């Protein structure tokens, strides 16, 4: 029998909330479902250290959200129906008016640019960490982020 690897519970306590929010910011219709699945999958992995586990969790959240959005798009194509964005109207009210325009512009960015900006400006990740989460090279992170910022600047 294998002893329990240390730190899963602590990781959950420390990072579950932020991973739910990351999934939400990336556009997941059910951010908790994504974050819970990420933690469930963590148990298929051996934990080297907290940093490695956290990077793995972020990458799962990114991938699951990406897949989920693709699935929703396919579903909508087959059966066109609202909602365009799964967040509730209450959510819209809660976000201050001052941020609406910027967030709408962010939502309209291509997926990779949006991901790069969220990981950079909400989670304050390094280029290497962003690259790991997105499954791209650090160089392309710089490209996506700068193009995203330029696009936002242009729209505002």
């Amino acid at each position, binding site marked *: *029998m*294998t*002893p*329990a*690897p240390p730190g*899963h*519970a*602590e990781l*959950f*306590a*420390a*990072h*579950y*909330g*932020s991973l*739910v*929010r990351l*999934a*939400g*910011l990336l556009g997941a219709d*059910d*951010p*908790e*479902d994504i*974050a*819970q*699945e990420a*933690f*469930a*999958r963590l*148990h*298929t*992995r*051996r*934990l080297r250290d907290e940093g490695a586990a956290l990077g793995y969790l972020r*990458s*799962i959240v990114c*991938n*699951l959200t990406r*897949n*989920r959005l*693709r*699935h929703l798009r396919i579903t909508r194509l087959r059966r066109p129906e609202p909602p365009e964005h799964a*967040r509730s109207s209450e*959510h819209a009210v*809660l*976000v*201050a008016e001052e*941020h609406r325009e*910027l*967030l709408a512009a*962010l939502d309209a960015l291509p997926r990779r640019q949006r991901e790069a*900006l*969220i990981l950079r*400006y*909400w989670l304050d990740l390094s280029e290497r960490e962003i690259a790991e989460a997105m499954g791209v090279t650090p160089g392309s992170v710089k490209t996506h982020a700068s193009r995203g*910022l330029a696009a*936002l*600047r242009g729209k*505002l």
Partner: protein
Amino acid sequence: MNDLEERLRAALDARAQTYETSPTAWLRVQERRRGPLRRWGVVLVALPVALVALLVPVLLGGFQGGQVMTGPPPKPTPVGQALVIDNPAENRPMRLWLARDHEGALVFCRAVQYAGGASSDGCGSTFVNRESEAAWLEGSTESVPPREKVLAYGAARANVAKVTAVTKNGKRLDGALYRPSGAPLQIWTVAYPSTERIGRYEFAAADGAVLAREEPRAMLPASDQGEPAGPAVEMKGMSVRPYLTPDRTLIWTRGGREVGLNFVRAKDLMTDMGGRRYPVELRVNGDRWFGIARAGAAKVTLTRRGGASLEATVRTDPWKVGVSLFAGELPGSGDPYLEGFELVGHDASGKVLWREDHPADKPAWDPHPPIGEVVTLGEAKVWFSKVTLADGRTWDGLCRSMPGKKTTCNAFEPVATHYARRLPDLGTIAIGVAGTGITQVTAQKSETKGTIHAPAGAPLKIWTVPYPGGTETFDLRDARGELGMAIGGEPPSGCSVSPPVGRAATLAGGVTVTHQDGCLIMWRDGRQFTVEMRDFEDATYTYGDEIFTGIAIKGTARVEMVYDDGSRLVAAGTTPDPWGLGLVLFSTPAKKAEGGALVIGYDAAGKELWRLD
């Protein structure tokens, strides 16, 4: 950082704060971890401490990114008795109870034993935000992939008399309400097939008024989380194909429903949490066993304890994952994990590649823990235990187990020193419980001397007499040879000594009714009246203890008792039984000490339907 970057950061922070987290999230994560459960036995058993330590402070303070707990708070203290019920999702007992955390807040706790041998327990949300609610959902056994049945559960206040799950297509599924002794809230459960999609739970008062509703969130199927990445392979009525999820997952389906997952990305493939590789991942779904094995296995056998060896169909995966796929039939009933079994993989030449021994799965906790020594009678084992009734009270019970049969417990009312009770026969042995003053037992007709067992540490004795059947009277005497009690007549059926457990209907006058295994039991103030449904015809009733109560055929709207002086007692309303028996229940306070000799049932139009003279 320029202005746009600062604005972007502020906007993302504002949006991020709008996403809330569920207080039962950790439990939901546990429920998803249904991969190689066998591998996680130690982990899950080790979880309770971590779980309790984790959830309580998190719930009080809310989840915050970067926040780390510095020390575990005390484990919540149980309040009232734990409810032990069958969990249909795992075919194992499950415990539900209420507790108070270190700050005195009520929390809902549950312990689950999984079919693969692992178990987990923990306490979930505090009720601080539930003060104005009549009832709510606390969790369920829903999982990905789903088990055949799901058990949803939660808490309800005293004024809730009925819980119903309403499916998305409008079907209504009744739940059960329990009142554990000493608990400040009721506990409710609803069991339903996992093919049903629950739209909402409704909680109603005795008059039918809906007091609360709650909409559950369904889990995403695994196949929703990625696109198919290869053709399906059909084996033994099941289909398996890879999906491009982040981890690359093989998803097994049967009849269109997901029944198993295997994570097959190279670094995860058949690797346990310690990074060690294992040779096989087994799943069981009803009468099928299936899974993946290390590449090279050409033959996979499963040998049940004391049973025949079963051989699976084996295929090499066509997707170059590097595994052998296997699927076989599991004839007969029983649970291989409970019985124990051995899995063996062979190569094409018949050489054994690996063996996995699965010892019989021992319960993580005993739903009927023995009080005192366990007595062995041939193949059977009997012991005293406590039995929780549907109204939360606890009676003494005598439990029995036989190889291959489900453990049953017969509850009985208190037994005095020179008193005894007979319980359902144990095969060809008459058996019962006796007070501590009883030292000898004899069958009158056959003049057979029986045995008095006095299990060490038990509160009472057990008497047994070999008995060929038929009518017999058993004399139970004390050490001086004085008769304590003679018990005659037909042996009691399981009904007459069954405890009132399960879903209860509440009637006027404090009468509660349960139905289980063909026994309908009405009880009030600790006294019970039992009806065997196979003997039931038009109606039956009991009178006394200031109550007139009974059951009658469907359509009966009013029941009248005619006293000897011609006056009448009317039970004006009837309640449909909640178990789908097609009967009605009635109850009304009695007026006189003695009941009348005539009882008549009428339909809603006043037409007489039946009468009991």
